[in-house]
């Protein structure tokens, strides 16, 4: 999911496993996952299934999955996925984190690695330290890139630099070196040539965790909008996702509490997903003067569907444009691009209106205005020209 593989694989290497990173989510992988999944579970289940099949084909022996007992069905994914995979004839050891007793997990771990108590503690300590460090590094890189991308002068510079530093980070497991890479990476992203006078539109990205964080699923919404000159700010991050359940960073709990409090007038009881983040994100976006909110979620997602029904009443109180994008395996990239473009036009028109009619004309022909002008026209079946960016 997103760049979370970097810190997680570092943790696994530290504690003595050889992580298998499935190939980046691609079409054939998704199809394999869909074939094996029940019909109307949400997209993340299907994608994850594809990843697991891929990992097993590459020779994984142990499948680890976080499990729990929440109102959202995610808690049962591990159980169901593993039993489907077993029925398909794969053999593996399953590791349901959260469902099994911690002592069972420790015993399993010991028998696999043959290490004693002390050694285990040491490697666990070091593992989690590197996990936190790398998660932090990834987070700071992504933040920098977000700011730079929508203001960059030479198109594509941010992304190539980001790719570089992430690859470098993934290779390195030494604490001192990781810290150094983090500093250098931030510096390198800072050096991206930007147009300081630019005032990009600001958009908050809210919705279901997986859809927000996995660029291959949301068709790189963050990068794409960034290239169109929009600053995209997701409410969720890899860092939060990895570190919150581990209780390593107290500030994460504070923000969680804050989100719950902010969304309380609309959602009186938690539903087990990211619903409070979605609603709080919209309210925050209004208060902080954002231009719009993009809400992404997979088809049949329970908590986000409830949000979707609540959003109209939230927007009634906090006037801000919200674009709902529902994804499943049939969503097309061009369709999403077109809607994003239309949404950007709408936000521009709104901003122009707020500025007192100044620059109204330039915004009404938003598609051809200079900051959305990107190369890469492509014709669709109707022969109409749709714009798609650097696919």
């Amino acid at each position, binding site marked *: 999911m997103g760049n979370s593989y970097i810190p997680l694989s570092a943790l696994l290497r530290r504690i003595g496993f050889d992580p298998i990173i499935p190939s980046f989510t691609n079409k054939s992988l998704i199809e394999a996952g869909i074939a094996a999944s*029940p*019909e*109307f*579970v*949400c997209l993340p289940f299907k994608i994850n299934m594809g990843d697991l099949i891929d990992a097993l084909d590459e020779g994984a022996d142990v499948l680890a999955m976080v499990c729990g*007992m*929440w*109102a*959202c*069905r995610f*808690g*049962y*994914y591990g*159980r*169901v996925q593993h*039993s*489907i995979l077993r*029925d398909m004839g794969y053999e593996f050891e399953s590791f349901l984190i959260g*469902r099994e007793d911690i002592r069972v997990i420790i015993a399993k771990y010991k028998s696999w690695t043959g290490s004693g108590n002390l050694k285990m503690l040491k490697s666990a300590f070091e593992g989690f330290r590197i996990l936190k460090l790398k998660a932090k590094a990834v987070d700071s890189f992504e933040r920098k890139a977000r700011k730079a991308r929508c203001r960059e002068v030479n198109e594509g510079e941010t992304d190539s630099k980001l790719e570089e530093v992430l690859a470098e980070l993934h290779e390195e497991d030494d604490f001192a070196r990781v810290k150094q890479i983090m500093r250098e990476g931030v510096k390198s992203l800072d050096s991206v040539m930007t147009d300081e006078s630019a005032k990009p539109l600001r958009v908050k990205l809210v919705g279901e965790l997986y859809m927000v964080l996995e660029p291959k699923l949301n068709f790189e919404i963050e990068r794409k909008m960034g290239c169109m000159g929009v600053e995209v700010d997701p409410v969720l991050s890899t860092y939060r996702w990895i570190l919150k359940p581990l209780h390593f960073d107290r500030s994460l709990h504070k923000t969680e509490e804050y989100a719950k409090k902010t969304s309380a007038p*609309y*959602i*009186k*009881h938690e*539903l*087990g*997903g990211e*619903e409070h983040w979605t609603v709080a994100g919209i309210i925050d976006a209004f208060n902080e003067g954002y231009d719009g909110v993009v809400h992404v979620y997979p*088809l*049949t*997602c*329970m*908590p986000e*569907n*409830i949000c*979707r*029904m*609540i959003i*109209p*009443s939230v927007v009634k109180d906090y006037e801000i444009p919200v674009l709902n994008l*529902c994804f499943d395996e049939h969503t097309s990239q061009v369709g999403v691009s077109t809607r994003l473009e239309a949404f950007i036009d709408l936000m521009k028109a709104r901003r122009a209106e707020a500025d007192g009619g100044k620059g109204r004309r330039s915004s009404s022909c938003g598609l051809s205005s200079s900051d959305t002008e990107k190369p890469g026209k492509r014709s669709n079946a109707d022969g109409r020209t749709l714009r798609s960016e650097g696919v």
Partner: protein
Amino acid sequence: MREKKCLRIGIPRALMYYKYFPYWLTFIKETGMEPVVSEKTSYVNLSRGVEECVDDVCVALKAFYGHVLRFPEKVDCLMIPRLISVEKRKYDTFTCPKLIGLPDMITGFDECIPKTVEFVLDVARTPAWKSAVDFAAKLGVGRREALRADIKASRAQKNAELEALKGKKIDDIEKRFLNGSDDDEQVPDSENTEQIYWWRKNGSPAVALIGHPYLIYDPFLSSDALRFIENHGLSVVTPAGMPADSIEEEASKYADISWSYERELIGAASLAFNDPFIDGIVMIESFACGPDSIITEIINREIRGKFSPDKPMMTMVIDEHTGRAGVHTRLEAFIDMMLRKNLRK
């Protein structure tokens, strides 16, 4: 107080109404108010719900919207249940997120519907009588009166469950409650357990119809599947007809699941698979139902695969486009197949 004004409380006939109507109706009546139940689900109110609802939620929720938005009579307020948890266990229990968030969603439609009043049920954290008192307080009913009504309503609910256990149809029980005939004093003999497992005695082949109450007891949504099977001379066993303690016993054989209603379905399915007197199982689930997508897999892989792979089972997924004829054809084929299998034995 009773003379002053008789509040009319609207209850949408959808979702968990089909499980809790004895309690809700009796409670509202006993506190001196008048319950008004919406018409049965029909094409008209379902399509109204489909218009207003997000596309990818289950058909039962769309029906609920339809019931709310097309509430037939003038009422003072609508009762919208918020069922957070319905039982107490070692671990956290929930119902479906959509049932938890139901009032939040409905209040978005403030202008076109009557005032709404939440009935919050969170058994894991607050006792049920307290939620009843809180609900009554919102309507200006005193604590003492509410408590008395709660006792009566709980008894009514228990009696209704007992009747269902003995093979009485939910339809008939509901009719009795709605018509308000006064024979609810006639308490079914709880000591008489003879009639429990009634399908084992009456000789005809039995089909277990497993699914959420708001699907299998709603004649429109389920295309009358229950009556259709019965008209073929078979007895139909629903989860309400199975003893709760046996369901619980069956469900505890599998890994814990925190959705109470789904846990019940798993237990019921397991009981049906293990009961030699039940010849076939029909599962009805709705498209886009979150919990169902998971428990169908669990039932298929953990229960059916392990215990009785050769007992006939059919899963039907329904949504607002489901055609009656399609459902009936499939049920007919299933029944034929099942009976032929029995003959061969």
